[in-house]
């Protein structure tokens, strides 16, 4: 087990370097960011040269990348164009997006798995059909449509919530955006759980458990669910990273100043420091979530061993 974890951690290093290098090059290919800093007019050449020097943009790309990575390992993510440290931007943006992601994940786990279990156990019945139809609709409708509709109906027409989230973004205000963000994944979780449950409900160990006279809820939670959750956990695990990075649409609609907003601003302003910094952290989150998922397998199914 320990050896497995260490091997996985070591594997992260090339993935990490590759990912950051790619992002670094991509942002660089987009052109010279200083040109856009002075608005619709040319910066005067002297100031331009000075700014370029300050941001290290006068050096070749490989050298910029090496300097940048050197700084990153000492915890310095550079300075954004508005004069703020990128680490400060992260300190405000990540907690908000993490809260949003947690809300989304909780919806996915609770609602998705409950729906999945119910439909899986009642295959072919009206409940199953209607939930399946519902998930189909959710998957088919893009997030921005669901988001804008929910905002318009609940926020503007019925005044149930505020249409935009305040800058502090407390948990209560993130419930609807979280649900919108989770909606598509939630549908997938439901479907994954359903098919997994439907498959395992006829297996020998479930029949044995029932034959032993175990109470129904114990059969479901301890035997059936535990064995059916492996594909679901895999999906949810990879989804954590996807939700955090993919929150751009939801964050824009509901005015949430999280990672998506900062990334969007960074890309628009071609701010290499911001974009690479945030993506670097997202890559780490993704890698760690994947590792955790793999380790969880053993907890769910002790037959799985790590060499």
């Amino acid at each position, binding site marked *: 087990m320990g050896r497995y974890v260490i091997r996985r951690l070591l594997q992260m290093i090339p993935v990490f370097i590759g990912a950051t290098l790619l992002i670094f090059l991509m942002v660089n290919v*987009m*052109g*010279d960011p*200083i*040109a*856009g*800093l*002075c*608005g*619709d*007019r*040319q*910066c*005067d*050449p*002297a*100031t331009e*040269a*000075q*700014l370029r020097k300050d941001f290290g943009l006068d050096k070749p790309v490989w050298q910029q990348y090496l300097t940048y990575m050197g700084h990153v390992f000492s915890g310095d993510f550079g300075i954004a164009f*508005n*004069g*703020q440290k990128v680490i400060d931007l992260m300190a405000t943006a990540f907690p908000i997006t993490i809260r949003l992601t947690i809300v989304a994940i909780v919806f996915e786990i609770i609602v998705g798995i409950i729906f999945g279990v119910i439909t899986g156990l009642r295959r072919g019945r009206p409940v199953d059909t209607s939930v399946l139809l519902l998930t189909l*609709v*959710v998957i*088919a*409708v893009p997030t921005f*449509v*669901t988001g804008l*509709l*929910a905002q318009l*109906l*609940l926020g*503007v027409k*019925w005044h*149930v*919530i*505020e*249409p*935009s989230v*305040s*800058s502090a973004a*407390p*948990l*209560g*205000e993130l*419930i609807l955006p979280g*649900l*919108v963000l989770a*909606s598509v994944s939630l549908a997938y979780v439901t479907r994954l759980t359903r098919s997994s449950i439907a498959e395992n409900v006829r297996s020998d160990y479930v029949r044995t458990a029932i034959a032993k006279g175990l109470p129904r809820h114990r059969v479901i939670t301890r035997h059936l669910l535990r064995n059916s959750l492996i594909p679901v956990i895999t999906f949810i695990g990879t989804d954590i990273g996807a939700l955090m990075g993919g929150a751009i649409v939801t*964050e*824009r609609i*509901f*005015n949430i*100043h999280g990672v998506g907003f900062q990334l*969007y*601003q960074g890309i*628009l*302003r*071609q701010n290499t420091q911001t974009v690479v910094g945030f993506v670097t952290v997202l890559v780490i989150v993704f890698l760690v979530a994947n590792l955790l998922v793999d380790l969880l397998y053993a907890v769910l199914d002790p037959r799985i061993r790590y060499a």
Partner: protein
Amino acid sequence: MRGAATHAKWAACAVAVALAATGCGGGGSGGGSGGGGADGVVRSSWGDPQNPLEPANTNEVQGGKVLDMIFRGLKRYNPKTGKAEDALAEKIDTKDSTNFTVTVKKGWTFSNGEKVTAKSFVDAWNYGADLKNNQKNAYFFQYIDGYAKVHPDTGQPTARTLSGLKVTGPQTFTVKLSQRFSTWPDTLGYAAFAPLPRAFYDNHAAWLSKPVGNGPYTVQNYTKGSQMSLRTWKGYPGPDKARNGGVDLKVYTDNNTAYTDLVAGNLDLVDDVPAAQLKNAKADLSGRYINTPAGIIQTLAFPYYDKAWNTPQAAKVRTGLSMAINRKQITDTIFQKTRTPATDWTSPVLGASGGYKAGLCGKACDYDPAAAKKLISEGGGIPGGRLKITYNADTGSHKEWVDAVCNSINNTLGNDKACVGSPVGTFADFRNQIGQKKLTGPFRAGWQMDYPLIQNFLQPLYYTNASSNDGKWSNPQFDKLVNEANADTDTKTAISKFQQAEGVVRDQMAAIPLWYQNGSAGYSDRITHVELNPFSVPVYNEIKVS
């Protein structure tokens, strides 16, 4: 759509239950915006400023908005007429349009109690001009003597202060310009010329996190990237005191969300109504919608570094292209009348006395397909055979109007391949291609005035090697007329000289004027007396909260 609606209803029910269960509905947006009257706080939309908030470093509207609230300079532009009027300036004297003596009014202080003296100005200007401080508006000080030493085009500066600035008393200082510039005092209303307190230099980082100025508002709280709370400064000595308790500027990720918030009653003022909502704005806001001219003109500029465009024949082609564009139709349908077809190269906000001359462009700006076709063929057709209009696709929905302009030209020429739009991914890349002179055809150009002077609409854009002469147009006749106008001590004759220079721009069709841009704003029924100044920024201190 039926399915989507049903789903939304389901989701709505689920959320309603969830919200009720946790007992935490929306509630409490922004900090304490309770009462009305003189203490009422205006909740306004904001965009994240691109640069650090320093007077000489702020070159876009969002940062400028704040500076306008927390600073007063020597002059202030009248929010209604755009005229430069004395604010902190007691008087500005000159005999030769080169040497000026400035007297600063007594009795003014910064909100931290420090007195505003002549030194507050001179130090601030020296700071702004100094290359070492990377101020993006440094070029505003370029007319002051000694600028080349403090801010050389290449190499290291050889001086830290402008030799043209001298403090001669507690409230007086002299300015020596490097050339004659009769309307120079009128430029001093621009934010870059604001005075700065000692705190700015002593603890720069602290000042940036909570700027201190001498305007009607003070910064109570600033969370970068999300909100700035400004409160009325009770000790403000000026005549334009704030008539409300303060302003909360809230950063929005998207101006559509800001508009939604306004309609839902969570916001009082949106000063940038999204294009998609212009149609509904009048009905949604039942009259609380403003659409007034601003000092912004949109043009098509040409690359004169490309030989094909820099011939006498090409001037005919450019005039022909100008006549091929149906400005009225485009401004009516695409912009919902938030643009006005341009008939000169300045802006209506200048007023006739300030140099705006409706119809100066004459026939060259009238839609006349037959004449357009004739002129273009006389000029030898479009250089390169095909017109590519370059624009940036990331902001400002430029695609729609560029396509419309192309359509108009294609219809005129009876060739649907004559003109195409050529989008560039980001604004930075667009500016980059302009800077590197890579463009071979016309490109979108917009000019937002720095100060309401005709000089500002002509000199930076068309003077040889001027700062925003992106197309590198050069004409000795135009340069000569501008020099003469600047040297003229009489404003009236100076302005008519500028108009003569504008005539040169017209005859050569240096850039095709498209339309004047309006500022558009919407507001809630909680506030009254909302107006936009000629820079399309709300006049916050006049707003009353009921």
